[in-house]
């Protein structure tokens, strides 16, 4: 049996049923991105009135918040769908079914986009209504930013899921916290040039850094930098492959340790 879209669809359906069953789960998807966007939006409005630099920087704060949310919530959407299997003690049922790891991962990737869309689409319209910032107006650049950020979020989500698979729910904390390491290093709210030289090397090793630099170039200088997007894509291909290999290694390790049947802490 090879890759089956039917099995991927079955898993997407499983998570869709879950989302549909709880209005609180749906509300949470919109709640945090909306709070973030409104807070940073008003801060930007205040700073624009009082600082000439920020006035020149235009909508970079609110743009950065929204792109950061794509990165952060993309990974969270992936990881939470995976964690749902651990919380419901359903993982063994899935692992002994014909569902292949690559199909499982594909379903989690689709669900991260679904969850992100439920949260971010309404928030993007709120940004237009409250602050006149139209993220959709970025056009093709937005597609390039989105693709690169999602690839990074999936790579991190795959790695975290592998760690939880291997080590149980004790490793759950990675799902909630690991992305915050990227917040200062990938220069979400400031240019890379702010960092000390040695830390800039680290920053340029992270695909989101290219996206946020690209966003600033677009919003401040009105220049789209395809070179930055291609470099981010190359790094993403590398990290995504590494994460997938790590996931399979951690899955095999879990099979050796017998931890697939014991999915508690």
């Amino acid at each position, binding site marked *: 049996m090879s890759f089956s879209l039917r099995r991927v669809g079955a898993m997407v359906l*499983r998570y869709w049923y879950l989302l549909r069953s709880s209005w609180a789960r749906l509300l949470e998807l919109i709640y945090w991105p909306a709070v973030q966007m409104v807070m940073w939006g008003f801060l930007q409005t205040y700073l624009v009135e009082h600082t000439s630099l920020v006035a020149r920087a235009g909508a970079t704060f609110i743009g950065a918040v929204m792109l950061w949310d794509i990165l952060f919530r993309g990974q969270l959407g992936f990881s939470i769908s995976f964690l749902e299997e651990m919380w419901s003690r359903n993982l063994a049922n899935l692992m002994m079914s014909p569902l292949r790891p690559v199909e499982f991962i594909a379903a989690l990737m689709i669900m991260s986009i679904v969850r992100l869309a439920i949260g971010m689409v309404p928030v993007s319209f709120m940004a237009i209504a409250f602050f006149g910032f139209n993220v959709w107006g970025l056009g093709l650049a937005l597609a390039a930013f989105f693709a690169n950020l999602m690839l990074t979020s999936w790579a991190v989500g795959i790695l975290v899921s592998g760690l939880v698979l291997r080590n149980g729910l004790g490793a759950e904390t990675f799902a909630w916290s690991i992305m915050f390491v990227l917040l200062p290093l990938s220069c979400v709210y400031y240019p890379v040039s702010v960092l000390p030289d040695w830390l800039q090397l680290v920053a340029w090793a992270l695909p989101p850094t290219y996206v946020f630099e690209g966003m600033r170039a677009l919003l401040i200088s009105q220049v789209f930098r395809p070179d930055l997007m291609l470099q981010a894509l190359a790094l993403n291909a590398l990290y995504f492959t590494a994460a997938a290999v790590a996931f399979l290694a951690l899955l095999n390790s879990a099979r050796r340790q017998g931890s*697939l*049947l014991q999915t508690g802490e």
Partner: protein
Amino acid sequence: MSPRIHSQAPVAVEQLVKVYKAVTAVDGITFALTPGAMTALLGGNGAGKTTTIASIMGLVMPTSGRVSVLGSDMTRHRYRVLHRMNFESPYVEMPMRLTVRQNLTVFGRLYGVDDLAERIAALAAELDLTDLLDRPAGKLSSGQKTRVSLAKSLLNRPEILLLDEPTASLDPDTADWVRGRLERYRDARGATVLLASHNMSEVERLCDRVIMMKQGRIVDDDTPARLLERYGRRTLEEVFLDVARGRAHLSEAAQ
């Protein structure tokens, strides 16, 4: 048993060893299941039953030895046969927020079941679940959950059915009812069933053969009738206690 017989058996376990760090959970066991037979795996807690079943499903990778199911090596080629087998255990739950119908739909699609809606309706009628189909799985009693779990395990009409204490925590009436359904399925499908249980009357009623494990090893393997005869006991429970407490005194006639 010869390797040739093993290669033809629906489930063949050969010199299986599983070591977790310093603990040997399974210590070189060999057995093959007979097609269409129901075999019990008996043993006290920590005897190695769950590890054996998990190895047969490919959930646990053997330290050494080999497990093959329907001719496929479960360490390397488990995806060739997983759609032809299934598993039921009260200790592995199904998503609680999903309704019974949603759960069965998801698993039916995972197993590639044709005419799924009809299959779910038929199983629901068979297992007395029709009125529960649109209720969340988490709101069911333990007996109802067991029936749902059983329905999931029968969805794909498995040729190999692995059961881990399928009637644990059920009242005697429901447990008897579940046993009847399992018998009926085995007879109708000709399925090969491996059953881990602590309920000796269940084993006596259902099983053609009993494999007794202790400390990761097989200490006896025979039909229930032959075990009773050889140990000179009236019930399998007495035989189990003899084996578990190391006072195996085979009857003189049998010796």
